[in-house]
């Protein structure tokens, strides 16, 4: 097991290097460079500036390959560089933003699982009943309603009716759990509902699939009760595809939470990346994408290890 993890971690290195090259190249291929952005900023602030001096300020006067190796060399020393426009190091930005995104992501995931697994199991056990249909219809609605629209309603109506608004300033969970949850719960629940809509349909399908398997028939023939069959014999087998889905969903949530982060004023990674992309703040975007990639790769590794834990037939090689 340890050997397997070590092997997988080693294999992360070439993948990460590929990510570095791609993101570095992509940033520089985007029309409108950081130099233009800086020149614009300086002139609009009344400071005379030309492209050459701006290039020199950003260290972009060197050839692109050289820039890459400088950045890469710094990375190896643990230095992710400094933001072009925020007077902060990239690492500091990530350090403050990452926990926020992770908190939102994990909360969303847990809430969605708490909804989807029981509902999916219930639907499978009562296949084609009225409640099965109702839950599935609600599920489709949950996954198809645009999240920004629902989020707007959630922000506007409480304010209109009860003059209530969620906090706009980020307070960490340790400082004040209540305030923190007041800020995070609404977007987490909204994200989770959308997620749960998809997941519950998947749970239902895979549980039904396992319920048709021969070993379930064996369990019935042994005289085992329905509850045990569902929870002991079927659910664990059904978890194998579900875990794959969860892994994908978690990866998506980290990158795709931009809308909710923006609407609820949550200072997460998603909001940061969009902002930095607009400014062509190359080091911040590069740093964030690197962290995203690392995170997704690690989630995949955890999913693979989870397979082994759920399914004894899986051999990790």
């Amino acid at each position: 097991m340890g050997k397997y993890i070590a092997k997988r971690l080693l294999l992360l290195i070439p993948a990460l290097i590929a990510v570095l090259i791609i993101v570095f190249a992509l940033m520089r291929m985007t029309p409108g460079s950081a130099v233009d952005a800086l020149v614009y900023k300086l002139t609009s602030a009344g400071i005379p500036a030309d492209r050459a001096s701006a290039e020199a300020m950003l260290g972009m006067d060197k050839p692109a390959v050289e820039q890459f190796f400088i950045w890469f060399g710094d990375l190896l020393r643990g230095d992710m560089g400094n933001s072009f426009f925020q007077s902060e190091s990239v690492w500091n930005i990530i350090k403050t933003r990452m926990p926020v995104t992770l908190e939102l992501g994990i909360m969303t995931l847990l809430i969605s699982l708490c909804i989807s697994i029981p509902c999916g199991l219930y639907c499978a056990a009562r296949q084609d009943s009225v409640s099965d249909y109702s839950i599935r219809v609600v599920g489709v609605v949950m996954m198809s309603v645009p999240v920004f629209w629902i989020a707007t309603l959630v922000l506007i109506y409480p304010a209109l009716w009860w003059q209530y608004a969620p906090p706009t300033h980020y307070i960490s969970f340790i400082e004040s759990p209540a305030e923190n949850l007041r800020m995070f719960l609404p977007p987490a629940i909204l994200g989770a509902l959308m997620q749960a809509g998809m997941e519950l349909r998947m749970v239902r399908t895979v549980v039904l699939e396992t319920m048709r398997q021969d070993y379930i028939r064996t369990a019935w023939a042994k005289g085992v009760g329905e509850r045990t069959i569902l929870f002991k014999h079927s659910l664990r087998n059904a978890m194998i595809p579900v875990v794959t889905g969860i892994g994908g969903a978690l990866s998506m949530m980290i990158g795709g939470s931009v809308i909710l982060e923006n609407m609820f004023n949550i200072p997460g990674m998603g909001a940061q990346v969009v902002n930095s992309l607009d400014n062509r703040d190359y080091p911040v975007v590069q740093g964030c994408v690197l962290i995203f990639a690392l995170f997704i790769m690690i989630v995949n590794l955890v999913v693979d290890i989870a397979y082994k834990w759920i399914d004894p037939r899986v051999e990790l090689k």
Partner: protein
Amino acid sequence: MTVINTETVLDVRHLKTSFYDDSGTEVRAVDDLSYSVHRGECVAIIGESGSGKTVEALSVLRLIPFPPGYVKSGEVIYRGKDMLQMKDEELKSLRGSSISMIFQEPGTALNPVMTIGDQIAEPLIYHKGMSRKDAYSRVAELLESVEIPNAKERIKQYPHQFSGGMQQRAMIAMAMSCEPDILIADEPTTALDVTVQAQVLEQLEALRKKTDAALIIITHNLGIVARYADSVKIMYGGRIVEEGNPIDIFEHPHHPYTLGLVRAVPRLDLPRSHGLHPIKGEPVDMSKLPQDCCPFEKRCAYATVECGSVRPTLTEIASGHFCACFHEDMTEAERAALPKAAPKDVAFTRPEPHIGELSAVELPLGEDLSAIMHERIARQDPIPETINDNILKVEQLKMWFPVTKGLFNRRVGWVKAVDDVSFSIQKGKTLGIVGESGSGKSTVGHCLIGEYDITAGNVMYNGQSITKMKGGKLRRLRKEIQMVTQDPFSSLDPRMTIKDAILEGVHVHGMSGKDGKSDETLVREMMELVGLNPVFSTRFPHEFSGGQRQRISIARALALEPAFIVCDEVVSALDVSIQAQIIGLLMDLQKELGLTYVFIGHDLSVIRHISDSVIVMYLGKVMEMTASENLYKDPLHPYTKALISAVPIPNPTVDRQRERILLTGEMPSPINTPKGCNFCTRCRDATDLCREEEPVLKDVFNGHYVACHYVKEMETQWVNI
């Protein structure tokens, strides 16, 4: 036969189970079935696929999935109570404790994510109220009783760590854990090798005898029935068509279907010249079966008008022998004299034209077709005189696959799938290769068609080594040597019509339009050649039955005008009646087209029937090689003897008098082959010499090759007995 206790433990009365398809059409899978089971009795229910035998068994325990299945009416009386009317709770307390079940595929019938111990302990905990600890020590005892070594360790393992035979034995341990009154076994050994099948069945018998449980065994294997059953029911079209004791059924069958089944199975104990009589047509399509007729009417050679309009009832024709046929009281001669003639007593009859649904797909061989064949034979290249008549010669063939490990795929060993195999085949003959799974028989087949880069040795086709062939020569070889594989369901592309499937190879080899024949003509000829109606050439594979698909596969191979066909388990997935049809077709094509076959299989009786000579393989090595007549008459290798004795003969009188050699254990892994003789770990006559030195394959008498140190000595010894 055992003395049967008269106490009835299960009484099934007028059971009817139906399935409803999407359009609401009712399929009567079990249609008015009645029988009873006595304490300690072994009742066998025989039927082909689709006969309703499995549905019947599942109905008894109310395990029919609803929807689409539904037990419509009837009674299943156990201890005076109707199980079909029971409350769920009461039924649950019977399942697994009083009536338990064993399923066909142990690989899928055990839960892959639960340990064997947990699964066997479940009924003990539920029904006997045992504590986990007590249940576990009981599980260890149970596993020991089915001879699973290191039972205490094995408890904690998962099903995939067990071999197929061990999985099924664990299933038996589970089913017997609460000492049930009735054990229902649905095709319990179909997925297992013959030697393992024999072990498993013997253990099942022993356990059952100890607790005096009744056994309902559902199978298509007539041999098993002949060996173990006290009472036999033959099912067809959801009904019992004949029932009686094994002697009645096997030696005096009255129903034409029973007669057909008994004659369609190749028998080891009869000479090869004793022909197979396939039952014509396909098993009845239950969704189209009318109520008021005999279900077998369309396939029956003796059917009269009455059979098509009135449903025959099961009537007692002799004490305890029941038959549902209007013509059961006729003698063989009288039946033969009925308007429709009986199959001719020759080795093979091509399927005759039949009426209605069934006739649409399959065709008789018309007179004009022999012309096509003659033309083809005339066109075939004469074989050069210099290369005697060995079309294929295999010299010391070795096919080893590396076993790798670690980050850099270091090679840590070899799987010696084929290890030093030599043989040759004469043109127009059939060589059978028989062995259990893992013996390397299929690998040999794949080497012959040039699929693998062989590790060592040589395969010579018409005097030329195929291992060194490249480019155009190799392409020509690919055309000359064709392969037909086991599974007719996965070997045809589901999105290609029959016509496209047949023509694909023809186009690849640029043979289209050869001899001025259009593609259409070629497809028509090929389909007619294998007995299919060319009208269906634009259909897709899923519209055909297994037997018909196998015919399509053969047509596809024949379209390339091969001289040599490797048949890899071609009849293993088919019902006995269809199996006989395909064997007949292959033998007939061989006679007419001068084809040479390598016929690979695990069924000794089929292999012996079709082959001129037979190779018995074990763990990648040849154990015995001889003319197929000798194989049953005069087997010399202890493995061959065990293999033959493990195959039950579908005749109770013959089978119950045979000496039985029960092999212990299972085939070792081909990665760690034993030192000395490969068979020494399971051979009852193995000595230190066998464990030290590997025997060479030697010609014992007139081309009868055996690889055993003790063949001569053992021979004299056994003659004395």
